[in-house]
């Protein structure tokens, strides 16, 4: 490795440095505020260093990693999201008894894992990134260890994630066995001549899909989602829903486009079934939920299904649509869980529907933000979610995936029902008893509210004037070659 390689890995190095700093500082002096500042600074610095990369074409660090426009965009997305989540975490953990400092350490580490995922071009780096991400997540989910649900969620995630990692490893081994290489590009060359996948390779890909599908929480690998979402502390839930899934989506796109998996009808069929099943299962199961965190968990299953529609479109437009949708979805999800985190008290998270009763009259501004987030999830105009959904639908119609497009439309309507349900609860008359008093210093709330307000403005910004973001995505992804599909 030469100096240039290190320069290109600067974001990762900064994150690693931040993690070590945190560890050292914790061992010397436990102070929530200092750790928080170090964390925020390292995310910011890592994000800033992305601008120094000056990517002209792809810079590959053979054989493990590649830094190209796609990588920069996804890293930037992951880092910014992590920063926002850490900003929302401060108020949440400040009012809790547990030792709060290690949380930030784990947060940095799992972000690092997600960043490695999106730049990897080799099975080894893929697995490395995935495990850094997952291992840190086990601890994050069970972080509030005095809560039964939190422990349950952590252990559930641990067992299932380990299991799915085993599948992924086995799948990689099979691919290696039949192609003799672990590099994405070399795998692509090895199978380039094949018009149909041999059984061994198909099994290999199939098992990898299991591993990937688990991380994304798509049907039929979705069982962990509601329990983990419910058990994990609200900011961690936001993290799982965004950074962890976003990293995996980035990897999936890179790998699939590289090996041109869309050539094989059987793989397309598998993903089509997964997408449709995810949309319907997620939305139908969300209908009867009384717990907002579980509801959002099911809704996230459906949203991953929507994303797969654009992914299946496979062309340049599809990749751009996925990227755009991810941005809107990240903003929305962080915002929604941020609201839950802010309304939570010492004992439990504000996750029951009844906790939101009359919110519009008790705290108009908080409720307005939450309504904006929910409407964006439902895909209503003026929000980024609408443009994202429109883009996905356009990508689907363009490649004439009518079945997927129509499923998406039907599911949007089903989804609307439960988002509206939450909104309806918010404008019911408030009961006096449910009013939660402010406990912390007002300045902490100002920080959280500021972050949430910023998110709302961003959301409406990309909803009303998406041109700038589209421009950014298309220039950044220019270096990322999409193989013509069909």
């Amino acid at each position, binding site marked *: 490795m030469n100096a240039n390689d290190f320069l290109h890995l600067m974001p990762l190095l900064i994150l690693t440095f931040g993690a070590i700093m945190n560890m050292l500082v914790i061992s010397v002096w436990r102070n929530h505020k200092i750790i928080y500042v170090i964390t925020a600074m390292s995310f910011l610095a890592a994000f800033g260093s992305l601008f120094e990369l000056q990517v002209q074409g792809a810079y590959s660090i053979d054989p493990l990693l590649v830094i190209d426009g796609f990588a920069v965009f996804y890293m930037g997305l992951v880092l910014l999201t992590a920063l926002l989540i850490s900003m929302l975490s401060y108020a949440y953990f400040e009012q809790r008894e547990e030792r709060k400092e290690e949380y930030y350490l784990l947060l940095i580490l799992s972000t690092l894992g997600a960043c490695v995922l999106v730049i990897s071009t080799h099975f080894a780096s893929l697995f490395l990134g995935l495990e850094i991400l997952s291992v840190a997540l086990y601890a994050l989910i069970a972080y509030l260890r005095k809560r039964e649900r939190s422990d349950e969620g952590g252990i559930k995630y641990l067992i299932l994630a380990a299991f799915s990692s085993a599948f992924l490893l086995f799948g990689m081994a099979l691919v290696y066995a039949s192609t003799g290489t672990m590099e994405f590009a070399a795998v692509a060359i090895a199978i380039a001549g094949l018009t149909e996948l041999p059984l061994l390779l198909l099994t290999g890909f199939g098992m990898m899909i299991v591993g990937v599908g688990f991380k994304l929480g798509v049907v039929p690998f979705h069982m962990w989602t509601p329990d983990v979402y419910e058990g994990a502390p609200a900011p961690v839930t936001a993290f799982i829903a965004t950074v962890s899934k976003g990293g995996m989506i980035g990897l999936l796109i890179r790998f699939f486009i590289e090996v041109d998996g869309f050539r094989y009808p059987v793989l397309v069929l598998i993903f089509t079934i997964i997408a449709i099943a995810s949309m319907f299962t997620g939305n139908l199961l969300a209908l009867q939920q009384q717990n907002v965190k579980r509801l959002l968990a099911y809704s996230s299953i459906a949203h991953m299904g929507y994303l797969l529609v654009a992914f299946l479109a496979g062309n340049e437009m599809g990749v751009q649509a996925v990227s755009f949708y991810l941005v809107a979805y990240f903003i929305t999800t962080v915002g929604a869980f941020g609201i839950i985190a802010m309304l939570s008290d010492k004992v439990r998270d504000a996750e029951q529907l009844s906790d939101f009763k009359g919110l519009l009259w008790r705290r108009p501004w908080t409720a307005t933000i939450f309504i904006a987030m929910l409407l964006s999830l439902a895909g209503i105009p003026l929000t980024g979610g609408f443009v994202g959904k429109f883009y996905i639908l356009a990508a689907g119609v363009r490649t004439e995936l009518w079945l997927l497009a129509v499923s998406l439309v039907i599911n949007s309507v089903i989804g609307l029902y439960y988002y509206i349900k939450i909104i309806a609860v918010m404008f019911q008359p408030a009961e006096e008893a449910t009013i939660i008093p402010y406990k912390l210093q007002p300045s902490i709330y100002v920080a959280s509210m500021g972050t949430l307000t910023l998110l709302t403005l961003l959301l409406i910004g990309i909803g009303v004037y998406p*041109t700038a973001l589209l421009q950014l995505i298309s220039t950044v992804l220019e270096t990322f070659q999409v193989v013509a599909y069909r």
Partner: protein
Amino acid sequence: MILLWLIVLLLAGGVLAWVAQRFHPASPRWISLFTLLAALLLTLMLWSNTGASLTDSAWLLRLEQPWVPQWGVGFSLALDGLSLLMLVLTFFLGLLAVLISWREIQHKVGFFHFNLLWVLAGITGVFLAMDLFLFYFFWEVMLIPMYFLIGIWGHENRRYAAYKFFLFTQASGLLMLLAILGLYFMHGNQTGTFTFNYFELLNTALTPQAARWLMFGFLAAFLVKLPVVPFHSWLPDAHSQAPTAGSVILAGLLLKTGAYGLLRFVLPLFPTATVEFAPYAMLLGVIGIIYGAILAFSQTDLKRLVAYTSVSHMGFVILGVFAFNEWALQGVVMQMITHGLSTGALFILAGFLYERLHTRDIRQMGGFWATAPKMAVVALVFVMASLGLPGLGNFIAEFLTLVGAWQANNWLTVFATIGLVLATAYSLRIMQKIFLEKNLEQTVLPDMNAREMLIAAPMLVLILWLGLYPQPVLDLAKPAIEAQLQAYNTPLVPEPEEPSIQTAFYLPATDSVYFQNLNEAFYERK
């Protein structure tokens, strides 16, 4: 630019009204009153200024701004006679909606007026958008505030009604979005330019199969909104549960966006497919007319009754739209306006009665003529308008529609005419149950006060004016209607045996070639 300012004015007024509540509880009312007054004056000014240029081209004003150039989405607004009429109606009814809410809404006044103005902004956008993406955008924008209006300030069963309204319209809207995207890509693949611009998409050549599917996508949205009978079930709930202002806007304006969509998009975009579908559409219209009338007759809830009369009246709209001739379309435009006024007025009266009696059940009313003669007279006028009495606006509308429809389909028109008889039955029942008969409970009904008279008077004047001298409206709508019918290339020569009608309403035999040339010239210039 003035078109954009109209929308911005409403949006800004809404935000201001919400914020202003903190400083003074009554200020939102004044703010939205002045906002709407300004918007109304602006549009009336447009009308008076551009009267001369009407003969030039169908379009009075246009605005083109790039919005999302990557997708070929433009912020494209345009105004023709049809949109202008709809805008005047929008702001007029909006103004009345503010006035009737003056006493009725005492709770969260700021948020109420925010929603009111934003619905109106969405409706304004729908009437002006000439870019399909923008059109869909506004189409959706008007839903959320309406949902809040029904869901927060409605009557006892408001949440259910709001849900139903929202899901029906949203689901059908999404089907339209699919069709818009299909059209977009078909046009793009043909010509190489991907655009949502209405004027460009007009020239898309479609295979019959494709045209049929795309048309059904658009129809889904418009027929649900209108509503046409199998898709109408959201309407009685939404109308009867909404607060008075909400009902007025729903009946007066939201239904009209469906009719407007049919005229503006379905007819010119899919000329062949609509001709195929026309007999079925007209049949649905006739079913709607009769079914709505029968159900209206059997209601006991006054607002529900009026809601079903809307179903019946909207049957005439679809009957006229799918007759594809100028007579019928003039009738449709008149019907959109006069129905907005007459049904709006009936909902307002229902609101007055509810404020006094706290019931909408007409079995508990009766004999109010003695105590409230002014209200009774106002009610009488609008009930007569609703049944289509000559001299009032609705008569012109229904007459023109039926004359046009007769040329397209004789038998269906005969059945539609039966609807007029049924209209007489349900309309007179309203009058009889509420204002005549015996006052069983000996209720003393206070008569209308000055504010209420202020609301009723302009509506009375307008409905009379439209009935006695509809010519300005017909003139204004004429070029727009011809533009919509251009694709059908049916030179409109009125039947020679009906010269009297021709002179009476001054609908000259159009030299459609002349207008066609003008329109073509217009497109080329663009």
